[in-house]
């Protein structure tokens, strides 16, 4: 098992290398560069300003050399400094956005699992019933509505007309002056709508997955024979079938690890939330190469680790799979 993990980890290195290489060149060869943002369309810049900026950002060197420099820094986990004028390091920039994004994603994911799994399992058990069909339509409605449109409608109705919920942001203006419970309540109240909408949109995937997985298991011979042996229906379904049907769901958990740090730029724009999605979007638009690279590399590492965890979990729960032994 350990050997298997070690081998997989070693295999990640060339993958990561390939990923950074592709990212780096795609971004740098794309039109536009960060220096021009400061120098363009500005009547008061002198002719040397542009060259000055290029040099400052190290963009005057040949691309391969820039890549080597970048790689050397990343090797010691230094993503460098953002090109934006606040002089923050990429790590600092990511870290100030990360908590918000992780909080929203964990809440969202938790609720999705809590709601989607029972829905999926029950639909499978009651296949083709009215319940099954209503659930199908319901979860797909969530999937099919353009999120920003629904979000605006909800904000208008619940925020402006009814005044029940705040419209945007994650905290009130006087957040720092609130007591601890007050702070918890404030954040919960502000994140209600964004979390609710992301859950509504995300139910379809998992509930369908759970349903299909459950259906498959219910059709297996051992379930049929268990029923034939006269075991109680509850026992058959909830002990034997459910346990096996949840196996593939475990892998989904592993695969959603990278999703935890990825923010949706649309959601964040609409709700005025300072998360990872906005950071990445702004970085791409401003050609802030170090930030773009930093986020992509972090995402890639998490994805690879997530995949590995998914595989390991699968091995742990499924006795038929054994790693490291032929």
């Amino acid at each position, binding site marked *: 098992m350990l050997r298997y993990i070690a081998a997989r980890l070693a295999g990640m290195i060339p*993958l990561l290398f*390939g*990923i950074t290489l*592709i*990212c780096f060149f*795609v*971004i740098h060869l*794309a*039109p536009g560069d960060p220096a021009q943002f400061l120098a363009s369309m500005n009547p008061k810049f002198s002719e040397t300003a542009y060259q000055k900026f290029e040099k400052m950002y190290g963009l005057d060197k040949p691309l391969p050399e820039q890549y080597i420099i970048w790689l050397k820094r990343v090797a010691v986990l230094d993503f460098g400094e953002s090109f934006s004028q606040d002089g923050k390091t990429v790590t600092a920039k990511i870290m100030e956005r990360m908590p918000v994004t992780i909080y929203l994603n964990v809440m969202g994911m938790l609720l999705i699992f809590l709601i989607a799994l029972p829905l999926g399992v029950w639909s499978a058990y009651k*296949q*083709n019933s009215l319940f099954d*069909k209503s659930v*199908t*339509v319901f979860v*797909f*409605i969530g*999937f*099919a*509505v*353009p*999120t*920003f*449109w629904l979000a*605006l*409608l909800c904000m*208008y109705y619940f925020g402006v007309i009814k005044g029940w919920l705040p419209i945007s942001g994650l905290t009130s203006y006087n957040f720092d002056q609130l007591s601890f419970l007050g702070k918890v309540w404030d954040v919960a109240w502000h994140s209600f709508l964004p979390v609710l909408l992301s859950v509504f949109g995300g139910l*379809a995937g998992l509930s*369908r997955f759970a349903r*299909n997985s459950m*259906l*498959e298991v219910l*059709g297996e011979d051992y379930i049929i024979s268990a029923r034939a042996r006269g075991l109680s229906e509850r026992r058959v379904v909830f002990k034997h079938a459910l346990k096996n049907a949840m196996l593939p769901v475990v892998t989904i958990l592993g695969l959603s690890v*990278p*999703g935890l740090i*990825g923010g*949706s*730029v*649309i959601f964040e*724009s609409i709700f005025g939330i300072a998360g990872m999605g906005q950071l*990445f*979007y702004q970085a*791409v*638009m401003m050609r802030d190469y170090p930030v*773009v690279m930093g*986020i*992509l590399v972090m*995402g*890639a590492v998490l*994805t*690879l680790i997530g*995949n590995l965890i998914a595989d390991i979990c699968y091995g742990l729960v499924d006795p038929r799979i054994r790693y490291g032994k032929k």
Partner: protein
Amino acid sequence: MAKNRLLGKVKGSYLFYSGLAVVLFFIILAVFAPVIATHDPTAIDLNNIFAAPSAEHFFGTDELGRDVFSRILYGSRISLFVGFVAVGISLIIGVFLGLIAGYFGGWTDIIIMRIVDIMLCFPAFFLILAVIAFLNPSVFNVMAVIGLTGWMGVTRLVRAEVMSVKTRDYITAAQVQGISGRIIMFKHILPNVMTPIFVTATLGIAGAILTESSLSFLGLGVQPPTPSWGNILTAGKDNIMFAWWLSMFPGLAIFVTVLGYNLLGEGLRDILDPKN
């Protein structure tokens, strides 16, 4: 016998039917847009901007006085076109690579699957965003980008199917007879993996239509004056309280269509899945 069973399943599936009806309805609308449209979708009338829905303009007019009904009709052409072509691109790449990887195995398989892994490491929307920002957001590029970033799932699916089909007796028999790999792949294996591909494609179209609307929200989707559902909806979002028709109708069009494709896809899966 088998056919009868299939037919029986189809008969019972209301969701499948409603999905199919929606999909066909919008395809017909798109095809006959020039006949059905009441106005030129790009005709500007600055004296009649933000007109509410009326007998003259069924869905009202937009910020340049253009007929929203006609724009949505023409927009359905663009949106569906984007969906079909994007999915077509993913399918061609995905099926091709999946077949090769699954059939030949060995190094071919390893290399292809590593590429898939690399591609999957970029969050899909991040990837689209980055590429779109670097290319220009023309209709063609939007399709290409959605397509080029969506083939990995198909490859995995096809590869898995091929690997399981490959071991069956009739394929082994064909190989023993010395039939070339290409013919085996396309004539004998491909037809067997068509079912899951078809389902994936249906769901993919729905996804592509939604992705286009998200890109439009960021201003990176299909560009004006070409109408797409995404950019009509986005143009309407700032007027959600005042000119509700600008966002309501394109929003509903996207919603109903995407729902339709999803129900169709799910229905197909239920019907074609031999286990049910």
